[in-house]
Every structure is written in C-alpha cells, then in structure tokens.
C-alpha cells in the first residue's frame, strides 16, 4: 500500500483521530501545565523550569526511579522467560494444555484491591506457615522491609502478567508454518536448538512486542504497587507511577506531577523505543 494512496489514510484515520483526541492533546496540555503552578483546576502563574528543577532535588523521585529501574530489569527478564516458557508449554499437545492456558491467564482477571488483599495473606500467612514448617527464615516477615517488598512486587507481577505475555507469544507461535519446524527436525535440531534457531527468530516480532510491553508496564506499574505495599514501608517500595500519583493527589502538586511524568515519559520512551527499533530490524517478513 502506497502511503500516498487514499486507502492508506482511510485505514489509519479513525485510530489516528482517536489517539490524538484521547492521548496526545491531553498529554500536550499536561506538558504545558508542567511549566505552570497548575493544581488540577487552573493555574495562576507560569513557573518556567522551576518544577523540573524541583523534581531533581526531590529525592523521592530519584529513589522511586532507581527502585523502578531495578524492578523493571528483573521483571522484564522473568516475565519474558516465564511467559514464553508457559506459551511453549501449553502449545505442546498433552492432556489439559488448554485448561492450563486458562489457568495461567486468569490472574489478569483480578483487579487491584482484591489482588493486594489476597496476596498479602499469601505473603503473611502462607509464606509464614511454609517458612516455619520448613525452617526457612527468609520466608517469614514478608513485606516488612524494602527487600521483601521488592520481591513481593516481583512475584505478584510475574504471577499476574506472565499469562498475559503468554497469550501474546502463543498467538505468534501459531503463525509459524509447520513445514519450517519440520525442516529443522529433519536437520537434526533438538527441541532446544529448534527453539533457539528457528522458533525464536520467527517469533521475533512477539519478542519485540513483549519486551516493549513488559518494559513499559514495568515502568508504569501502579495497581500492584498500591494494593500490595502502597509504597511502604517508609517509601522503600514506592515506584515511579505511584510517586507521580502521590505528588499530584496527596500533595496536590499537579504541575510537579506533570513535570515528573514528562521526565519519566522521556526515559521510558528512550529505552522502549530504542528496544523496538533495534528488535524490529532483526525481523523478517515471510
């Protein structure tokens, strides 16, 4: 399809319009507000870069950024490995593989508060009980400090999101022509070699998508953070999104929050888009 053709634009226009009205125009307004003293209702003066200066002196932001980065690194790896692993598992032919798909996917159906409720009990009670039964001290006292809070968040996120990542991988796995896999079998490739050399390169687009999703979701994560630790104790598990939300809503500093959001956006965009750009280059069309 040529991009000078009418159909190209006919196909794109509806979504482009929606995107502009729903995301970009408000976002641009937000960027503008970040240079003011906007409080969510209106603004009385232009502050220039004051908010941007403030945010770098605001240790909360930097701490949250650092915590989030660590979280993102760990979850991106775990989610992709586990998500893809689950996808490979449930696309094998064995009894119950379809049921398993549903099971792995189900965590996505639970929203924030209930999620936190359930998992707090698992961490405080089930982990405690296990820890005592097997004399593993590290299983007790979860969520009481930054470290267990971190891993708690990781566990919940992985539990919840890997089914999501899984179904994306499944969709792409199923587009691989079976002949190509067969050819690799004839070439003597073991299942693992088949995966590394054939399957994985052929689902490279899925990898791009999932990397992007896990990256950006990792940075944007809020619900799990809110419901599980609410940033505590002593802000040790406060992530970026929560820091921004709190700045806006608890501290009523909407303009500063917008400034943080913009910086945050730039960081995430730089990483994620670079990743997409780099990965897309490796993909081939059939």
């Amino acid at each position, binding site marked *: 399809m040529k991009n000078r053709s009418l159909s190209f634009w006919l196909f*794109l226009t509806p979504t482009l319009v929606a995107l502009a009205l729903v995301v970009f125009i408000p976002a641009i*307004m*937000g960027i503008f507000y970040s240079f003011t003293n906007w409080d969510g209702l209106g603004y009385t003066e232009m502050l220039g870069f004051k908010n941007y200066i403030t945010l770098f002196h605001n240790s909360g932001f930097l701490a949250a950024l650092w915590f989030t980065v660590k979280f993102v690194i760990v979850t991106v790896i775990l989610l992709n490995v586990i998500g893809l692993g689950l996808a490979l598992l449930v696309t094998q032919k064995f009894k*119950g593989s379809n049921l398993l798909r549903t099971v792995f996917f*189900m965590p996505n*159906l*639970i929203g924030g508060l209930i999620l936190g409720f359930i998992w707090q009990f698992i961490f405080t009670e089930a982990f405690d009980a296990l820890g005592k039964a097997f004399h593993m001290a590290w299983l007790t006292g979860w969520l009481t400090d930054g470290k267990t809070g971190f891993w708690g968040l990781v566990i919940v996120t992985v539990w919840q999101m890997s089914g999501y990542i899984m179904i994306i991988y499944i969709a792409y796995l199923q587009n691989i022509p079976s002949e190509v896999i067969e050819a690799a079998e004839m070439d003597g490739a073991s299942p693992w070699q088949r995966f590394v050399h054939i399957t994985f390169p052929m689902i490279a687009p899925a990898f791009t998508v999932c990397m992007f999703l896990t990256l950006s979701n990792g940075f944007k994560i*809020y619900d799990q953070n809110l419901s599980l630790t609410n940033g505590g104790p002593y802000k040790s598990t406060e992530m970026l999104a929560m820091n921004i939300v709190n700045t806006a809503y608890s501290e009523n500093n909407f303009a500063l929050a917008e400034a943080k959001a913009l910086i945050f956006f730039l960081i995430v965009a730089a990483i994620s888009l670079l990743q997409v750009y780099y990965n897309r280059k490796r993909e081939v*069309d059939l």
Partner: protein
Amino acid sequence: MKKTSRFFLGIFGLILGIIWIFPFYMILTNSFKTPKGIFASVLSLPTNGTTANYGNSFKALDFMNSLGHSLLITVISVLIIVFFSSMAAYALQRNKSKLSGALLMLFVSAMLIPFQTVMIPLTANFGHVHMLNMWGLMFMYLGFDASLSIFLYQGTMGSIPIAMDESAELEGANRFQIFFKIIFPMLTPITVTVGILNIIAIWNDYLLPSLVLPQNQYTIPLQMFFFFGEYTKQWHLALAGLTLSIIPVILFYIFAQRYIIKGVTDGAVK
C-alpha cells in the same frame, strides 16, 4: 511427541497450574465464608459455608443492570478497537516507508504515557463537548487501547505472505475487500488475542469509567467499589462479586480459545 514426555509435561503443567491457581482457591473459598470466617483463617476451607454473600453481592451490585452495561461497553469497545486497529496495522505493515515507521512509533509511544497524567485534561475536554458517557468512553478506549492492538497486529501481519494481497488484488479486489476477506480472516489467532486482552482491560477498568460514566450507566467494577469504603471493606461481598464478574470473561476466554486455530497460514507458503 512420545507418550512419556507428554506425560511428564502434563505433570509439570499440573504443578505449575496449582501454584498459579492458588490465589483463586483463596478467592473462591473465602467468598463462601462469613466476614468473621474470612478473618479467622483465610487459608482454610469454609467451616460453615454460606452462599448468602452471592445473593447479597448480586443485589448490592445491581448485578443484572451493571452486567448489562459492562457487556455493552466491553463488547462495542472491543469491536471498535479490533476493527480500526487491525486496519491501521495493515496499512502500516504493508507500507514500508519512513512515514509509516514514524506513525508506528507514534502509536507505540502513546502506550508509554501514564494515564493519570492525561486524566484531568482528557475528561475536561470531553466534558466540554458533553461526551462524558458510554459513547465517549468507547471512543476513549479506542484511543487508549488501539496502540497495543496495532502493535500486536503489526507484528503478526509480517508472517502473512504479501502474495496473498497480490493474488487478491489481481482478482479485482479493492483494499477493503483484500483486507476484510483475505487478510483479516488469516489474523484470527491474533484477533482473538487482541480481543481477550482488550476485553479484560475494559471489563476490569475502574478509574476511567469512574470519571466518565454517569451513575445510571455504572459497570460492575464501579458498583463493586462501593464495597470498599475508607475503613469498612466488605471482603465477603467483594470476593463473591469478583467471582460473579469474572465468570463471563472466563467463559469467553474458553470459548475464544477454540478459534485460535493451529497454523492458519500453513497452506499459503510454498
């Protein structure tokens, strides 16, 4: 595959499945407990179970009504999203120019904007044109969720040989016919995936509808949040409500899986 390895895979899957399902065990068992029973021991089975939570929750949620709104909003929004984003992805994938690369990046970058930062300007704008209702919400979902859908579609579209388009084109089909009659049916697995992901996102969404919907169009999650006051959280009702509200989605998911057909493009490649 050999029988034995199938068997061990099955066992392995079973163990993983149990780990995964454990929290649901908690949700389900606790939804049958009295409030006192829940907090006496969350992990145990209900000692003297009650189904009253379901009845009460059903009433408190105004279930039939809010289910109706949830269904209406979810179904229409997802149809809109699938329809338009698959088209957009097709345009972007089949056109390999700098412009479409840039447009794709634009869509992709939209996913990075934290919702909370656009929330106030967004609702303000829509409020001014009196679109704070179901229909406005559906349009907003297109804006928010199209990006991911396009991204997903765009990735799989590459595996559909361009010869499909060419062949249909020579048979006299125009772009829309090519897309809807030839390409779109071949995208079934990813369409199902896009559908599922959007359905759960919209079905469970709370914040956006809470800002947009008038009270007479409330969805299940909006009703459900009345179980959560600042201090009084009615877990027994909430868990029963959650169970009620995820049943339609799970049913859909199981149903949709059948449409993820193995290797639809097999015959196309030579």
